[in-house]
C-alpha cells in the first residue's frame, strides 16, 4: 500500500506542475501584454519598458515561470494589476469568508446527506428511497442558481428573512447569528453537495450490501440494523471518505457560482472580478490556489480509496 500511496503522491506532484504550467501559459497567450493593459493606450514606450522590467516581464518565459512558482509557494504572488495591492493581501482580506462558508457547508451538509444516503441504502426500493433518488437526480441536473433562487423565494419572500445579499465581517458574532446571516449561501451549497453525496454514499453502502459476506450474515439471521452498523458501514467507510473528499472538491466549483449569485465577498468573486478586469497576476495566483485545493482533495479521495481496499492494505 505504501508504494501505491507514494506513487499517487508522485502523480499528484506532476499534476500540480502540469496545472501550474497550464495556468501560467494560459495567462501568457493574452493578446496585448500586461504592461499595455495596466498603463493604457497613452503610455509611452519607455514607461511600458520600465513597467515590464519591474514585473519581470522582460525575462524569458521559463525564468518568469520559475520565479512565479517559487513566489507562489513562498507567499509572494506579485501585485494586482487592477488595484496595485499585493495579491496575498487581497486574498488575506477575503479568505476567511470563503473558508467560513465552506467549513460550515461541510459541517452541516456532509453529515445530513450521509445519513440520508445511508438510510436510503438500508431500504432500497422503498418509497423513501425512490423519493430521495428522484430529488437528488433533479438536484444534480439543475444549475446552482436555480436552487439559490428557490431558496430566496422561500426564505426571503416567503418567510421575510430580509436581505438575500450578505456583506460584512464575521468577527465578534455568535455561531447562530452568523449562520442566519450567511444562511442562504450555505444552504445552497449544502444542496449542491448533498445531491451528489446522497447518491454516491447510497451506492457505496449498497455496493457493500451486495457482497457475499453480508448475504451470509442475512442468512444466519443477524438483525438488519446490526448488519448495517457492524458489517456494512465499517467496510463502506473508505468509499464514503472517498465520496466526501470528491464532493468537497466539487464544492470548489460550486462556491464560484454561489458566491457570485449572492454577491458574497469571498475568493471566488475575487477571481471572477480578476477575469473581468483581465488582472492576470490575480488569476494566476488565485487559480493556482483553487486548483491546488482541488488536487489535494482528490488526492485524499484516492488515498482513502486505497486504504479501504483490504487487498491493497495487506498485499500477499
Amino acid at each position: 500500500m505504501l508504494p501505491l500511496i507514494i506513487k499517487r503522491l508522485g502523480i499528484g506532484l506532476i499534476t500540480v506542475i502540469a496545472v501550474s504550467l497550464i495556468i501560467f501559459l494560459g495567462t501568457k497567450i493574452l493578446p496585448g501584454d500586461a504592461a499595455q493593459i495596466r498603463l493604457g493606450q497613452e503610455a509611452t514606450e519607455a514607461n511600458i519598458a520600465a513597467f515590464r522590467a519591474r514585473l519581470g516581464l522582460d525575462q524569458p518565459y521559463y525564468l518568469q515561470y520559475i520565479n512565479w512558482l517559487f513566489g507562489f509557494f513562498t507567499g509572494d504572488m506579485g501585485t494586482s494589476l487592477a488595484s496595485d495591492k499585493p495579491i496575498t493581501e487581497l486574498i488575506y482580506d477575503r479568505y476567511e469568508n470563503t473558508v467560513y462558508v465552506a467549513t460550515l457547508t461541510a459541517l452541516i451538509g456532509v453529515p445530513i446527506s450521509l445519513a440520508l444516503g445511508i438510510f436510503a441504502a438500508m431500504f432500497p426500493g422503498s418509497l423513501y428511497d425512490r423519493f430521495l433518488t428522484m430529488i437528488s437526480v433533479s438536484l444534480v441536473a439543475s444549475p446552482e442558481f436555480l436552487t439559490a433562487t428557490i431558496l430566496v423565494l422561500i426564505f426571503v419572500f416567503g418567510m421575510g428573512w430580509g436581505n438575500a445579499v450578505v456583506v460584512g465581517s464575521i468577527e465578534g458574532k455568535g455561531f447562530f447569528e452568523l449562520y442566519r446571516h450567511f444562511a442562504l449561501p450555505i444552504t445552497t451549497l449544502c444542496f449542491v453537495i448533498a445531491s451528489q453525496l446522497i447518491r454516491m454514499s447510497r451506492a457505496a453502502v449498497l455496493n457493500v450490501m451486495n457482497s457475499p459476506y453480508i448475504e451470509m450474515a442475512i442468512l444466519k439471521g443477524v438483525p438488519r440494523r446490526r448488519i448495517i452498523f457492524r458489517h456494512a458501514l465499517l467496510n463502506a467507510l473508505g468509499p464514503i471518505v472517498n465520496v466526501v473528499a470528491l464532493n468537497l472538491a466539487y464544492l470548489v466549483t460550486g462556491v464560484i457560482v454561489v458566491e457570485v449569485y449572492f454577491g458574497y465577498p469571498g475568493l471566488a468573486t475575487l477571481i471572477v472580478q480578476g477575469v473581468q478586469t483581465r488582472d492576470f497576476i490575480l488569476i494566476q495566483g488565485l487559480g493556482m490556489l483553487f486548483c491546488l485545493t482541488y488536487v489535494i482533495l482528490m488526492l485524499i479521495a484516492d488515498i482513502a480509496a486505497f486504504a479501504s481496499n483490504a487487498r491493497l492494505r495487506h498485499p500477499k
Partner: protein
Amino acid sequence: MSKSTSSSKITGKSSSKKTTAKSTVEHNHFVAPYDASVSFDELPDAPQPSKFRFSFTGWVGIIIVTFWIIIAITGPFIAPYGENDLPFPDAYSEFQVPQPGAWLGTDVTDRDILSRLIYGAGRTIGIAFLATTLAYVLGVILGIGAAISNPKVDMIISRINDAILSLPTIMLGLVVVAAIGSSIPVLICTAGVIYASVVFRLARALGQEIMVMDFVEAARVRGEGLWWIISREIWPNARMPLMTDFGLRLIYIILFVSSLSFLGLGVQPPQADWGSMVRENLGALQYGTSVIPVIAPAIAIATLTVGINLIVDDVSAFSGGKLSKRL
C-alpha cells in the same frame, strides 16, 4: 448455387439452409458475408434482439426534450418579439409583471422575457450540442487511437489527459476566457476540449476492453481490415455506453456553459442565453416585484437537463449501464 445462398437471408429457422451453407464452406474458401441483406444479428446463433421500450419517465423526458428542441429550432419564427425589442415602448419600466402582450413580464431593460427565453433556447442548446459533439469527435478519436496505438504514446496522451481531468472545469474555463476573451466559438471550443478529456477516458477504456475480446481476435485472424473491425465489431458494442454518456456529457456541458454565462464570461449581452438571463435579472430579487425574470431561465435549464437525464437513465438501464457507471 453458392451465389443464391449468400444473397438469401440466413434465418436460422430452416435447418436445410444451414447445411447447404456449410457444404459451400467446405468447397470454397470462406469469405465473410459482405452482403447488405445478411447482417450478423441474423446468424442462427445470434441472440434474439431484445425489445427496448421507454418507461413512463422515459417518455416524459422525450416529450420535454422534444419540446425544447422544437423551440430551439423554430425560435426566431415563434417568438412574439425580437430578442432586444421592447414590448411596451411607450411605457418603459424595468421588471414589469406578466400581462397580456408580455406573458412572462419584462426584464431589466424592459425586454420581453418570453421572447428572450425562446431565443436563448436555440443559443444554449446549440452551443451545448456543438460543444458535446466536438468533445466526442476529439475524445473518441484520441481515445480509440490511444487504445490501439503503442503503450508509450498511450501513456503520454493519458498523462496529459489526467492533468486536465484533475482541474475544476469552471476554473479552466475562467483561465481560457481571461486569456482569449469571450465569444460563442471560444465557448464551444473551451467546453468541447475540457469535456473531451472525460470522453477520452471512456473511449479508451471501451476500446481497450473490446479490442481484446475473442470476437475481435477472431475477426483479426479472419483477416478483416481495421475499418471493418471498428464498424462491425467495436462500434456495435461501444454504441450504447457512448450514447448514454453523450447524454450525460450534454447535461454537464449545458450546466457548464450556463454557469460561465451566469458569471458574465460566456454569451455576452445583448444576446440572450439562459445563463446570462439569470445574471442580468438578478436585481429583480432585490426589488422583490417579480422573480420570474430570474427563475424562468433557471427552470428552463433544469427541465431540459432533467429531461435528458430521464432518457439517459432509461437507456442505460436497458444496456451498457454498468460500463458507463463504472468509469
